[in-house]
């Protein structure tokens, strides 16, 4: 279903704009990736002994796949609260430039700052990509409503996926339950690899995968942070060194 032309009077209705934003999720292949990711998160939460309500609330409040799997795996494995919170906040720094670059697409001179809070909350890689694709087809004064609709649509997909993953993990045979749990590492590895453009990103990904098993031998309770800091710093250092002075 294509969006109406940009000068169409139908954009005047905020409600219809919201619905168009919401139904735009059907036009994106990223929605399928999002669904698979959140099925995996639901299953992971189940097998790490979190409740269904906790899992859904996590998706609602955190709305960032990497942060959610960090919370589930670190808390689930008994890591300290400080390490989990630090790992989450480091993983979330990337949201800052995303928000900074996406908000100007929907801001107009009349926009109040509080109106940007919900779109900022919905900002994560999927919404960020889709905003660049859809927003040029939406009148500027309607973009915030449209983005809120799009965000709600993506949220609905993710919450249903959580439910599906959680229930499947609880009821499937061990083989199929493990297939669903494997979705998380596979989906995250490939989507991170896809977003890794420069040498620093690729090295950080590879070193992070290799160094964690070594760091985990220390059993320090800070293994994830240690391997992440070391691998990330080496990757950054190599990048700077290659770039020259």
């Amino acid at each position, binding site marked *: 279903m294509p969006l109406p032309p940009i000068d169409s009077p139908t954009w005047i209705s905020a409600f219809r704009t919201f619905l168009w934003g919401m139904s735009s999720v059907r036009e994106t292949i990223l929605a399928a990736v999002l669904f698979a990711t959140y099925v995996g998160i639901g299953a992971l939460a*189940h097998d790490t002994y979190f409740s269904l309500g906790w899992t859904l609330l996590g998706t609602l409040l955190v709305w960032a796949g990497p942060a959610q799997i960090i919370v589930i795996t670190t*808390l689930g494995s008994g890591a300290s609260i400080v390490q989990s919170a630090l790992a*989450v906040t480091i993983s979330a720094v990337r949201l800052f430039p995303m928000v*900074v670059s996406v908000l100007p697409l929907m801001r107009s001179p009349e926009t109040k700052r509080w109106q940007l809070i919900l779109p900022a909350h919905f900002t994560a890689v999927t919404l960020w990509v889709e905003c660049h694709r859809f927003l040029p087809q939406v009148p500027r004064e309607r973009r915030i409503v449209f983005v809120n609709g799009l965000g709600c649509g993506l949220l609905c997909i993710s919450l249903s996926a959580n439910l599906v993953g959680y229930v499947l993990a609880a009821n499937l045979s061990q083989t199929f339950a493990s297939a669903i749990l494997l979705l998380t590492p596979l989906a995250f*590895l490939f989507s991170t690899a896809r977003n890794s453009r420069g040498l*620093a990103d690729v090295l950080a*990904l590879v070193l992070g995968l290799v160094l964690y098993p070594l760091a985990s031998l220390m059993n320090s309770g800070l293994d994830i942070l240690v391997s992440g800091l070391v691998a990330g710093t080496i990757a950054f250092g190599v990048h700077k060194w290659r770039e020259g002075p």
Partner: protein
Amino acid sequence: MSDLLRDFVGDWHALVLLVVVGAIPNQIWRMLGVWLGGGLDEGSDLLMWVKAVATAILAGVIAQILVEPPGALASVPTALRYGALVAGFAAFVLMRRSILAGVVCGEVVMLAGKWWLG
């Protein structure tokens, strides 16, 4: 009914932890983006280093799920878990960085391996 509700909500400590460990440390950055907007150099060294560390942390979590698998995944032999990931990665690269191809191939290899091992 109240049992169902109790199962759904679970331990309230975990809900508090979710907010303290998950929601707040994550949302700080989005809200900073709203308040500070602009005035940011995306290519700055600091941001680049942070991005590299964040990528490595996520990679570490992916490795953790494979090295110390939760629940049902522990029933899959270690070699098969890594094998599925490597096969998926090969498909991902061959199919021009298709996430879907990588995920499907990894899953098929894992299921086939498990079936073959009995």
